């Protein structure tokens, strides 16, 4: 019932990639690699976005990254989260600002992520307040947090009582693949947590309690078709562990943060970027998640998506980039900030926080 981390955060290691500006320089062929790829803004011109700019369709999802503190240090984490990230956690003041905005505007879904969101002391209160406002709440739970301490063991009941949709990473139905990415012992604790979620009705027929799993490749390759992966995950998890779940979301790893570090260290960076470009799917551009999402950071700043947040690419709305200056109209008409990592969301069938786009 304990997990062993295979890595530390880039921040803790003092790695140059913990500087987001340095990461952007790598992606643009100015640091560590001289490989330069066609600008993403040029690529989307062939997808019908002739200006090379992308606009929102609506603001339907309010994604709140409540902090970088996590009980795991996964090898691919785009947040660079970990047990050492104790400073970056959302305060009550910023949660209150989120609730004010959610009360004012018709934004249907609150998508809570981290880190491990449950480690934020205001987590349960925030979920309950969002539910009082009638919002659909998604929580991105890493599963092992439920097993990490007895005080979190009742989280499945809490989620059920608040009708929270749970979205959890499980990169493989084999312990070897899962632990290679997420840390030794993560698979076993994840299965125990899934069994607890199943026990209160999650993933079971006849309930409206949804547990959706996230598959993302455990190496320098792209995800295969979501339907085929889901069928195999369902078969294997049921057969080996009597675990049920609703949907599998296949998500592509973005070439940023710790996954970028892995790509560079394993000499896979250029091949991976080329595979994203080769798999560029013009049909996936229209459905990318930044078009209906606003992403909020622990310190209250606004971004187009969680990936832009981790590269510190704030929304392109001058002077109104914080919860305290939230301008719904301006945000609805903003230009989405694009860079080379965006190829990760348009490869193959496309990728979003809700899985495959196509």
């Amino acid at each position, binding site marked *: 019932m304990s997990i062993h981390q295979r890595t530390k955060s880039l921040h803790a290691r003092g790695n140059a990639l913990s500087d987001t500006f340095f990461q952007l320089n790598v992606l643009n062929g100015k640091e560590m690699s001289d490989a330069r790829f066609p600008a993403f803004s040029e690529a989307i011109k062939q997808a019908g976005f002739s200006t090379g700019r992308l606009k929102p369709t609506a603001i339907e999802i309010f994604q709140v990254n409540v902090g970088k503190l996590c009980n795991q240090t996964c090898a691919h984490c785009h947040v660079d989260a970990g047990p050492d990230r104790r400073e970056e956690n959302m305060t009550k003041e910023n949660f209150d600002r989120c609730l004010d905005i959610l009360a004012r505007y018709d934004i249907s879904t609150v998508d809570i992520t981290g880190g491990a969101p449950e480690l934020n002391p205001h987590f349960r209160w925030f979920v309950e307040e969002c539910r009082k406002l009638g919002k659909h709440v998604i929580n991105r739970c890493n599963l092992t947090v439920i097993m990490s301490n007895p005080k979190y063991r009742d989280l499945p009941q809490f989620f059920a009582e608040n009708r929270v949709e749970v979205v959890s990473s499980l990169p*493989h139905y084999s312990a070897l693949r899962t632990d290679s990415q997420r840390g030794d012992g993560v698979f076993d604790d994840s299965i125990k947590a899934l069994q607890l979620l199943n026990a209160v009705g999650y993933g079971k027929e006849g309930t409206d309690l949804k547990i959706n799993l996230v598959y993302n490749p455990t190496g320098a390759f792209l995800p295969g078709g979501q339907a085929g992966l889901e069928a*195999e995950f369902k078969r294997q998890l049921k057969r080996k562990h009597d675990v049920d779940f609703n949907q599998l979301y296949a998500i592509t790893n973005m070439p940023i943060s710790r996954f970028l570090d892995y790509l560079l260290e394993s000499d896979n960076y250029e091949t991976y970027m080329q595979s994203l470009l080769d798999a560029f799917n013009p049909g996936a551009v229209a459905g990318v998640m930044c078009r209906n999402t606003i992403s909020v950071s622990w310190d209250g700043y606004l971004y187009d998506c969680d990936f832009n947040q981790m590269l510190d690419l704030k929304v392109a709305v001058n002077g109104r980039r914080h919860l305290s200056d939230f301008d719904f109209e301006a945000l609805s008409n903003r230009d989405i900030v694009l860079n080379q990592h965006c190829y990760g969301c348009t490869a193959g069938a496309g990728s979003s926080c809700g899985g495959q786009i196509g």
Partner: protein
Amino acid sequence: MSKKHYFDPADLAKFGNITAWQKSMGDKFFAWYGEVMKEGALTEREKSLIALAVAHTIQCPYCIDAYTTTCLEKGSDEEQMMEAVQVAAAIRAGSTLVYSTQMMNHAEDMTM
């Protein structure tokens, strides 16, 4: 042009070029190949494991690289991939050993 190797991993990306000198046949091959490998009575994941096993049997380095990647993409893990290769190896070994029945028959025919 480099003549250092018979096999160059970079050549795998040039596979599509085999249509260059015989387009009609090459196009037919790729259309058939695509049809064979897509989901049917067998899943794409199962077909990629078969392809990986065959790749080892025919000892094609390009196919081994290509179908190792494809197997991972389709969700197979190391244990499944190694089992597929073991199946190929077992059939190959068995096909050697089964010939020994001919050896035994012949030996019995000519010995007292």
